[in-house]
């Protein structure tokens, strides 16, 4: 395999210049990144030579999927490193039935649906939110759940439903909004919760004998809330190396570097490579607020079916703010898009290239599945950055 482990040429063109000049945040330092990339390449090449296969790591978080491609790191390390995306794009892991419920809620009279922009074009069994909006439904994109509370306050004649989607990073912001609504006695605000938890799905994936990983790149902003310790089970119960990792070029490289070291030393641990943000026990204040309003529930995931205690549902005492309780729906069965491999892609078992729709009948303009819609979906990311690859090459060891 032709490669030159000391040539970090790609980085110089792939890294966006950082707008941060303040030293505490300059984690895009180009010369440092190049030096670290060269070292990581060296170590990966050594490992590759000894083991005669690529090292396989999973990046659990969708934001990592994008950052690894956008920075050029995925491409630069491809000869020795197979990076698989995991179930960390909230839109992508949302079950088809929940998407159909959102669409049905938007069709109810006097209802305003508020959502993060990512949800708008996710295909339901029949249509999507963007088309429902064009047809007259009141659907508004918000940046923060607090905007949904403000809309409910300003328009008391409307029922305002917020689509609560996201992992541990996002749930505290939704919990805080519910707290505001409860304190204000705001009865026309409710949350449709499809929130998911990272640890239970990781635990599920690691029990799958078909998936053989050498290590996990753990989601830095989930860990900002949960803390590092929350993920300690990965090394303890599964003897798998893992590293909590940030999102700048240096963070990504430091995480991979640490994982290569762990694999080489055969000493699995869950290391914290994002110490400026992630504490041992996370943000206790934020999580306490989550636990005030939510409890773990058995929920459905795309491609994984129901997993116990893997999502967050509103506590019964807050049923008045729970859209599932307030607006019960009886829907015909849901059907995931024909031929869409999202369910396999988000388990790390398929790459977008393996899907017959990819870049043909499925593109960001005409997405067939959610992984092509979300800005951090694996298919959208590969469409934008990785299309010179083909699956045979990418999957070869």
């Amino acid at each position: 395999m032709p490669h030159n482990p000391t040539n970090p040429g790609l980085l110089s063109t792939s890294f966006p210049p950082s707008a941060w000049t303040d030293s505490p945040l300059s984690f895009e330092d180009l010369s440092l990144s190049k030096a670290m990339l060269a070292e990581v390449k060296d170590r990966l090449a050594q490992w590759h030579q000894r083991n005669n296969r690529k090292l396989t790591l999973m990046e659990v978080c969708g934001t990592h999927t994008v950052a690894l491609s956008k920075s050029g790191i995925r491409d630069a390390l491809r000869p020795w490193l197979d990076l698989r995306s995991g179930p960390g794009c909230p839109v992508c892991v949302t079950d088809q039935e929940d998407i159909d419920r959102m669409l049905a809620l938007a069709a109810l009279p006097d209802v305003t649906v508020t959502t993060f922009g990512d949800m708008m074009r996710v295909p339901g069994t029949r249509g999507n939110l963007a088309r429902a909006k064009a047809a007259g439904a009141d659907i508004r994109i918000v940046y923060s759940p607090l905007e949904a509370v403000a809309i409910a306050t300003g328009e008391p004649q409307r029922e305002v439903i917020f689509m609560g989607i996201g992992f541990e990073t996002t749930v505290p912001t939704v919990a805080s909004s519910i707290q505001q609504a409860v304190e204000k006695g705001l009865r026309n605000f409710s949350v449709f919760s499809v929130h998911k938890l990272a640890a239970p799905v990781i635990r599920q994936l690691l029990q799958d004998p078909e998936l053989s990983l050498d290590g996990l790149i753990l989601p830095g902003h989930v860990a900002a809330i949960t803390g590092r310790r929350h993920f300690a089970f990965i090394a303890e119960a599964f003897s798998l190396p893992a590293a909590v990792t940030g999102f700048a070029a240096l963070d990504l490289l430091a995480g991979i570097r640490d994982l290569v070291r762990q694999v080489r030393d055969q000493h699995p641990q869950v290391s914290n490579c994002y110490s400026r943000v992630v504490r041992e026990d996370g943000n206790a204040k934020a999580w306490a607020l989550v636990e005030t309003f939510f409890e773990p529930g058995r929920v459905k995931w795309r491609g994984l079916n129901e997993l116990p205690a893997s999502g967050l549902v509103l506590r019964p005492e807050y049923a008045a703010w729970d859209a599932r309780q307030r607006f019960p729906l009886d829907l015909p069965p849901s059907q995931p898009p024909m031929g869409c491999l999202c369910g396999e892609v988000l388990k790390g078992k398929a790459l977008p290239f393996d899907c017959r729709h990819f870049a043909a009948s499925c593109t960001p303009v005409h997405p067939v599945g959610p992984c092509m819609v979300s800005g951090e979906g694996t298919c959208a990311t590969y469409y934008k950055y990785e299309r010179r690859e083909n699956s045979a090459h990418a999957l070869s060891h």
Partner: protein
Amino acid sequence: MCLAIPAKVVDILNDTIVEVETFGNRAQVNTSLVEGLKQNDYVLVHAGFAIEILDVQAASESLALWREIYAAQPN
């Protein structure tokens, strides 16, 4: 969706709102998820909230360590 942006606290407006600056833009963010936020702190902003305070010392320690490790290495 778990994208979170680092920003600097430039003004404390009240008990729950601060003004932050990031990439030259200013925005107001809610601080009810973090404790003990001060002027000039760096925070991580997600969906209109500060979700964590950055540990500037940890940041500069990481950078200093790497600069030391890689200083001797040719680019």
